[in-house]
């Protein structure tokens, strides 16, 4: 499986200098940037990256492209508003933050497992259709339901707690909170991909029939993968609702659902670092594309970028970078590197489920 990740794997291998450099940069980042860059760019990218990471885990290791990951995150956000405190005056049971967040994450992860249970009996392209249908149905449901989700208005005034005398919505603490969550899950996904469970999941992705006849419970593995990815998405969803302070049907609309897919594909579905690269690119585009074109036309830009990536670099920016690096290495010296390049390009097919 190591060849699967190719270059990014070597680069971010345990103890490699690049990994330490990256970590050091992420740690001193708030010190060298202003509040806007720390909060709106840094923390936001990390949160979106974490949601996309949950998609990357399902798609990259499990071969299941689920479009409902943002819906899981959104449900967690709604649950925070329902069980915790909000300023709208609907629901809001006022539970303490640590009970609410754990409970919200757990329920949302269960919802994710439920989505998995619905879609695992079908394969490939069906998964996209079913999860997209669930995501859209959820959007219409929260929009028309006033009893639980407060309909069109949604909820506002959802605040992170003040612990140890620190208000966690301040840019720097919030950045570190997001960074910790992102790093934790990134590490967990890497660890999980090398565990027995992760290896079985990847084998199921490559050949479900063979794994079934070897005695593996294919459906169960997939549902568990959905549950685990649900935990990641839901935790990021809690952060996202703290980041925004409010949640409404617009937060779970189809546009945002697709954004998460765009981010994951943009960065690359091969390695857990991909979604974060995609998220940074996305957030930067979102914030600075307006300098080049009309703000209204952002979707055209992101759609075109997405189209180009899908057409010309199916492995995303990560794959593009790998290709360039490969070419540079190959032009310098020939021999063993070429064989490695072949393995890398062959593995490009393995996301598609057969």
């Amino acid at each position, binding site marked *: 499986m190591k060849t699967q990740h190719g270059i990014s794997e070597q680069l971010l291998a345990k103890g490699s200098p690049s990994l330490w450099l990256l970590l050091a940069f992420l740690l001193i980042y708030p010190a060298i940037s202003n509040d806007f860059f720390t909060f709106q760019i840094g923390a936001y990218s990390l949160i979106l990256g974490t949601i996309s990471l949950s998609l990357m885990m399902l798609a990259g290791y499990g071969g299941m492209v689920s479009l409902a990951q943002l819906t899981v995150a959104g449900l967690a956000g709604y649950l925070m508003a329902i069980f915790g405190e909000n300023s709208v005056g609907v629901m809001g049971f006022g539970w303490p933050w640590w009970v609410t967040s754990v409970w919200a994450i757990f329920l949302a992860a269960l919802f994710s497992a439920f989505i998995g249970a619905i879609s695992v009996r079908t394969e490939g*392209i069906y998964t996209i259709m079913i999860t*997209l249908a669930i995501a*859209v149905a959820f959007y219409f449901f929260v929009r028309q339901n006033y009893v639980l989700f407060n309909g069109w208005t949604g909820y506002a005034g959802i605040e992170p707690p003040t612990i140890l005398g620190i208000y966690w919505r301040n840019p720097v603490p919030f950045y570190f909170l997001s960074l910790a969550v992102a790093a934790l899950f990134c590490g967990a996904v890497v660890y999980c991909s090398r565990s027995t469970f992760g290896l079985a999941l990847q084998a199921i992705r490559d050949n479900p029939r063979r794994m079934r006849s070897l005695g593996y419970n294919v459906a169960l593995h997939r549902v568990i993968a959905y549950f685990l990815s649900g935990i990641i998405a839901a935790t990021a969803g809690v952060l996202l609702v703290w980041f925004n302070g409010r949640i409404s049907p617009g937060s779970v609309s189809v546009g945002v659902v697709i954004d998460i897919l765009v981010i994951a594909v943009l960065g690359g579905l091969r390695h857990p670092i991909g979604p974060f690269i995609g998220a940074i690119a996305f957030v930067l585009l979102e914030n600075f594309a307006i300098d080049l074109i009309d703000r209204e*036309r*952002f979707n*055209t830009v992101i759609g075109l970028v997405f189209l180009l990536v899908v057409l010309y670099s199916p492995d995303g920016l990560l794959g593009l970078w790998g290709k360039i690096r490969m070419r540079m290495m190959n032009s310098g010296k020939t021999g063993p590197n070429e064989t490695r390049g072949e393995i890398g390009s062959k593995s490009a097919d393995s996301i598609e489920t057969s």
Partner: protein
Amino acid sequence: MQRFLNKHPTWAVFILLAAALLAWLVFSVWPEWLIDLIGRKKTFVHTLINGLTLGGLYFLVASGFTLIFGLMRNVNLAHGTMYLLGAYIGYEVAEFSNNWFLGLIAAFIAVGLSGMLMQLFVFRRMEGDDLRQTLVTIAISIIAADLMLAIWTGTTYQFTPPEWLFGSVTLPIVSVIKSSGEAVYLKYPLYRLAVLVLSMIVGIALWLFLNRTRAGMMIRAGVNDREMLSASGVNVQLVFMLVFAVGAGLAGLAGVVGGTALSIAPGEDIRYLLASLVVVIVGGLGSITGAAIGALIIGLAEQFGLAYFPTYGVVITFLIMVMVLAIRPQGIMGK
């Protein structure tokens, strides 16, 4: 019919009983206790016909979606976008020429052409790679939705259908009998009945096209075995383009029909994408009959949900989808 009776006697009896009950509900004058139980008859019959017409509209949209998938294994997530594009183009043409039917035809042709171009320039390059094709359709729908928003802005448009399609007709269904003994008949908008009739015509035409013409034969052969079809000397790429044109054209046509029944606004593309997704998941991907059954079920479920459980309407649609997936993952008519 005979075979079905012999094969599933219990089901046949059940279906007959249900049909008889439905006929009684529609044509009889309701007794008091029934009104106490589920409300006025007018609501029920209206909801029923609304559901049928909405089902007809959904069939128009979803049949193209399922046709394209059936042959090319291409899940076209830009299908809702084509619906909206058809509605806008139809609106412009109808306004310009003052002829609603010209708008209908223009939408069919223009969207059909755009589908053909998509097949020619995009999907042909990545045949057999369904994930990438799907991602490309998503990208196209993002861009197209944004460009349509730029051109037609967020305003809601309303068609003006021809005079004689406007107004309402009196149905031969008694709603209540007044104390004076005079019977009150139900009224219903004529246009919506026309939608139902049109979708039936399209359904029959599609069936004839697929089962009685040479091109239809090629398409059916292609659904069963693409390689064999091309090996026997048929230009498969041409067949693909034809199917994409018809499928996309149907979405465009549905745009005008649906836009007239309701209205045209940004966001409608998502609504009809969801409708086509759920319809084909329930009915079975790739089957026209499945699309008809699925459209009927979803149309009825949505209208009854709206009338009787206003804030939980979507949940009913969702539950139907979950139930079908649990019992028959390939859909009712899926293979």
